[in-house]
């Protein structure tokens, strides 16, 4: 379908190209939103990052290579956009006071407070706590480990696909994934205290 969009765009039939591209957007949007949200950990930022990536992919559709799946090509654009946003956010945060966070160290999203249907208050509370724990643990992972974990386990990408999307070696992807899971396991099953000891051990080993 991306090839069709490319051909239509090249032929100057922009209305048709846009119509076809709208189908592509619908197909990849949710996945892109998940990746951006877990990477940026901010819904509004993720929304903008996805929009920008989709617009950028359309404007650069002429450079799309047929041998690569659109999904992989587009995810690479999205990841680069997310990285730029993280860099910009860090620059901004140097000049701003830290934003208030909850007990788990997560910036609370208003959506967290929306009641979901079909759950008892207790279930909702437990579910919210579990989500907050997972999000906090994910947030504690280094950026690359987090990205590799998200792509591998949330989106079900293979190491080869993750390698193409992120520009990392396949073996590096596997190492990042292994470390990410090991750390998540420590954070989510044994708590933050154990994580500190793991970090200390890692620092000692690095020396």
């Amino acid at each position, binding site marked *: 379908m991306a090839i069709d969009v490319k051909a239509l765009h090249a032929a100057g039939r922009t209305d048709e190209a846009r119509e076809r591209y*709208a189908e592509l957007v619908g197909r990849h949007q949710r996945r892109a939103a*998940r990746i951006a*949200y877990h990477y940026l950990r901010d819904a509004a930022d993720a929304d903008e990052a996805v929009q920008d990536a989709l*617009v950028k992919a359309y404007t650069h559709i002429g450079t799309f290579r047929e041998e690569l799946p659109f999904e992989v090509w587009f995810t690479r654009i999205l990841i680069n956009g997310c990285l730029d946003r993280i860099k910009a956010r860090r620059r901004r945060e140097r000049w701003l006071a830290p934003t208030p966070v909850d007990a788990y160290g997560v910036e609370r999203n208003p*959506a967290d407070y929306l009641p979901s249907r079909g759950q008892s208050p207790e279930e909702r509370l437990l579910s919210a706590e579990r989500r907050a724990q997972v999000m906090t643990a994910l947030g504690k992972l280094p950026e690359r480990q987090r990205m590799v974990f998200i792509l591998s386990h949330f989106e079900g990408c293979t190491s080869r696909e993750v390698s193409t999307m992120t520009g990392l070696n396949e073996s590096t992807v596997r190492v990042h*994934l292994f470390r990410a899971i*090991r750390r998540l396991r420590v954070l989510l099953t044994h708590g933050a205290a154990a994580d500190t000891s793991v970090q200390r051990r890692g620092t000692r080993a690095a020396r």
Partner: protein
Amino acid sequence: MRLADTLLRRGHLAESALLEALLAGNRPAHLDQCDLCAGRAAGLNRWLDDVSQTGLETADDIFTAERLAGQQAQVLRRLAQLDQPKRVIAFPAPRRGETNSQDGRRVAAGWVGVAAAAGLVLGLIGGQVTARLAGSSQSAADRAAVATSPPPATGTSFFDFDIENSSLRGTPAGVLDEMTPRAIDTIVSTRVGG
């Protein structure tokens, strides 16, 4: 099997070994023989699935279908704007050799030059004529003034100015003047004293 697993864990696999096996997809033979390690591997797998499921649910709860529809509409709007030909607002440049007059009509630049030159010439001529006329009337007045004025008194100086003859007499300034010692008196008294 690793030596550490053999010695420290009585042959059971460490969690990292289980994880490696899970990620690489090659199932160690030990898992087929040991129910405990097989159970641990299954538990690890379930835990990973649970984390992934929780992560996906969290993101999906935030990015609802309505929100995604809005996002798609916004993307398509931006794309439509991109595909539209760029609108360049032309700045009205003046035609060559023409300039705008104040009432909006165009006046040829040549005429503006002619008008400026004519103004300059008229100004010069007018200035010369005025200077000549003023010079002749001034010299006549000077001659008349010389004829009527008395000859200048000898030995007069700045200090000879007398309030008696001035218009200050009788005014508060005149009173003040009378109270003030005169410079000439001061000089004379100084000389006499010295």
